[in-house]
C-alpha cells in the first residue's frame, strides 16, 4: 500500500483501493475566516444545534486579520461566537494565532497518521508529517459539524523519488516549483503525491511543510512524506509519540518521477501559473523590475525561511524602489525571529515586518498590488489578479531569491550577491 492507502485503510478499518468512495470521521476539521462563516451558515440553515465533535474543530481567523474592515470583523465575530456557543476550544484569536498551516503542526494539533480536512486548499501542508490532509469546501465542513463525517475518494498516488543534497541557497521551495513544472498544474489532479528516496532525509521539517504545501499547485489531493526520524523528533518536541511509517515495497503508483536535489538551481515561477518555473540564472538575465517582495505565508513563513531571508539581507538594504514585506507565520516564529535578531536585520535593511496574516498572498490586505505592479513572493500562487489588480504580476520564489531581488530591485540570483 501507498502512504495514502495505509492511512485511509487504517481509518476505514479495512484495506481500501484507489477509486472507491469512503465516508470517514476525520481527526481534525479546520476552517478559516473566509470558509468558516459559510460552513456555520450552512450548519444553522440545516437547523444544527450541537457540533458533533467540538474537540476536533479548529477555527483560525488568518486571511483578513487583524480585521481589515467591518465586513472582515463581522466574519471573525461569527466564528468567535460560534466557538463560544459550541465550546470549541481551538479558536485562535490574533495575538495567539498564526497562519493556519504554520500554527497547527507547531501546536501539535495535527500529527502523523491523522486524517485531516480543511476548508482551505493548502491543508495538504500536513502531509509533511505523514498525515492524510486535504482541502475541502465549506459544505464538507458543515457536514462534519453536523454528523462528523466527510466523503473521500481514495486517490491514486504519484511517487517522487528524491536523491542527493541541496546546493547552497537551493531550498525545498525550489524543489517543489521544479516538481510542479514537471507535473503541470493538473498533473496530480485527484491524486496523492508521495515523496521517498534517500533525499528525503536531507529535507528538514520546515522544508517538508513547504513542499507538501504546494502539492495542491500540481492539483494534488495531498503531498505525503514518510514518517522517519526527522518527523519523530519534531513530534517528540511537542510531546507526541509516533511510529515510523513507510509505504509498502509493492505499493502501486500511477506515475514515478525522480529528482536529484544536487542538480537543482533556485527557481522562479512566472505569472500566471505556479508551473511556469525557470532557473533564477535565466530570470536574472531579463532584469525583471519588481515593486514589492513578500516573504512569509503558509508556504514560507517558518523560522528557517526567515533565517534564510536574514542571511541574505544582513548588512544590506532593500532597493529604494521596492517595498519588502516580511510576515512571520506564527507568534512563535515571530518571537524566535526576535530572539535570534532576525527582526533587527529586517528592519535595518528597510523591510516592513507584520503580525501573522495571509493578507497579501490572496490580494486581501497588507500589500495589495496596483495596476501594472510586479511582486516577487514566497507565497504559492501567481494567478491573474492574485495579489491585487488584474494587471499586476506575481513571480514565485524562495525566501533567498525574494530577499536578493528586494535588494537588487529586479529578480536576482542570491548566489551572485
Amino acid at each position: 500500500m501507498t502512504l495514502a492507502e495505509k492511512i485511509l485503510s487504517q481509518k476505514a478499518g479495512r484495506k481500501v483501493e484507489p477509486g472507491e468512495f469512503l465516508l470517514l470521521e476525520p481527526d481534525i476539521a479546520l476552517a478559516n475566516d473566509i470558509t468558516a462563516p459559510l460552513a456555520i451558515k450552512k450548519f444553522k440553515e440545516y437547523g444544527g444545534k450541537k457540533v458533533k465533535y467540538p474537540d476536533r474543530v479548529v477555527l483560525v481567523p488568518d486571511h483578513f486579520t487583524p480585521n481589515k474592515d467591518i465586513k472582515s470583523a463581522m466574519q471573525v465575530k461569527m466564528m468567535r461566537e460560534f466557538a463560544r456557543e459550541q465550546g470549541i476550544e481551538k479558536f485562535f484569536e490574533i495575538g495567539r494565532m498564526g497562519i493556519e498551516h504554520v500554527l497547527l503542526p507547531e501546536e501539535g494539533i495535527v500529527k502523523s497518521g491523522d486524517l485531516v480536512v480543511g476548508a482551505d486548499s493548502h491543508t495538504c501542508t500536513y502531509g509533511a508529517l505523514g498525515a492524510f490532509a486535504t482541502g475541502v469546501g465549506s459544505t464538507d465542513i458543515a457536514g462534519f459539524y453536523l454528523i462528523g463525517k466527510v466523503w473521500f475518494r481514495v486517490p491514486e498516488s504519484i511517487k517522487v523519488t528524491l536523491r542527493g543534497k541541496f546546493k547552497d541557497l537551493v531550498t525545498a521551495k525550489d524543489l517543489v516549483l521544479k516538481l510542479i513544472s514537471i507535473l503541470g498544474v493538473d498533473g496530480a489532479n485527484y491524486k496523492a503525491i508521495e515523496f521517498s528516496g534517500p533525499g528525503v532525509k536531507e529535507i528538514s521539517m520546515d522544508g517538508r511543510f513547504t513542499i507538501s504545501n504546494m502539492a495542491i499547485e500540481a492539483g494534488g489531493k495531498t503531498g505525503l512524506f514518510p514518517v522517519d526520524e526527522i518527523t519523530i523528533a519534531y513530534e517528540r518536541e511537542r510531546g507526541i509519540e509516533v511510529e515510523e511509517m513507510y509505504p509498502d515495497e509493492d505499493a502501486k503508483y500511477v506515475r514515478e518521477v525522480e529528482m536529484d536535489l544536487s542538480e537543482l538551481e533556485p527557481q522562479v515561477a512566472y505569472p500566471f501559473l505556479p508551473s511556469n518555473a525557470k532557473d533564477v540564472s535565466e530570470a536574472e538575465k531579463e532584469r525583471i523590475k519588481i515593486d514589492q517582495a513578500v516573504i512569509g505565508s503558509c508556504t514560507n513563513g517558518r523560522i528557517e525561511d526567515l533565517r534564510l531571508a536574514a542571511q541574505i539581507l544582513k548588512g544590506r538594504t532593500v532597493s529604494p524602489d521596492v517595498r519588502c514585506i516580511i510576515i512571520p507565520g506564527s507568534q512563535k516564529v515571530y518571537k524566535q525571529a526576535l530572539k535570534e535578531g532576525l527582526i533587527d536585520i529586517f528592519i535595518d535593511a528597510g523591510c516592513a515586518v507584520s503580525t501573522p496574516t495571509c493578507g497579501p498572498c490572496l490580494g486581501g490586505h497588507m500589500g495589495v498590488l496596483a495596476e501594472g505592479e510586479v511582486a516577487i513572493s514566497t507565497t504559492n500562487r501567481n494567478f491573474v489578479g492574485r495579489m491585487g489588480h488584474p494587471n499586476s504580476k506575481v513571480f514565485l520564489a524562495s525566501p533567498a531569491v525574494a530577499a536578493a531581488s528586494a535588494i537588487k530591485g529586479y529578480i536576482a540570483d542570491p548566489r551572485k550577491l
Partner: protein
Amino acid sequence: MIRGRVWKFGDNISTDHIAPGRYFHLRNNLEELAKHVLEDAMEDFAKKVQKGDIIVAGKNFGLGSSREHAARIIKIAGVSCIVAKSFARIFYRNAINVGLPVIELKEVDEINQGDELEIDLENGVLKNLTTGKEYRFTPIPKFLLEILKEDGIVNYLKKHGSFPKV
C-alpha cells in the same frame, strides 16, 4: 434533463478568475459577489449569462483555492451545468456538494460558443442540438449523483439524516 446555451472558456480557469480576491468584501453576500463571477476570464459574463446556460471549458476548471464561493456564485448566476475536459479536485467536490452538476467530456473542443446542449446526467449522454452530434461521458458516480439530486449535501442531510450509501 439539462438544456441550455453554451459559454466557452479555456484551460485552467482559476478560482481567482471566478471569484477575484478584490471582491472578497462581498463574500458574505453571494448574490452581489455573483455579479462579478468569472469577470477576469470574460468581460461582463454575469450580465450576459442567462438562467439555464451551460459553461463549457478546457482542462482543470476551478484550480486554486478551496473557496466554495466559486461554485456557489456560478450556480447563483444561473448556470445549470459545467462541462469541462477536467476539473480541479476541490472545485469538483464543492460543485457536487452545493448541487451544481459537473461533467467531464474529452470532446469539448467540438462544442462552440452559443451552441444549444442537452445533457442526460444519469445516462451520461450529451447532445449538441446545434451540430446534431451526440457524446457519451462517464456518468457521475452514483454516490455523488444522489447528493446532486437533492441539491447538495446540506439538503441531502436535511432530508435523509445521513449521507447516501457508499
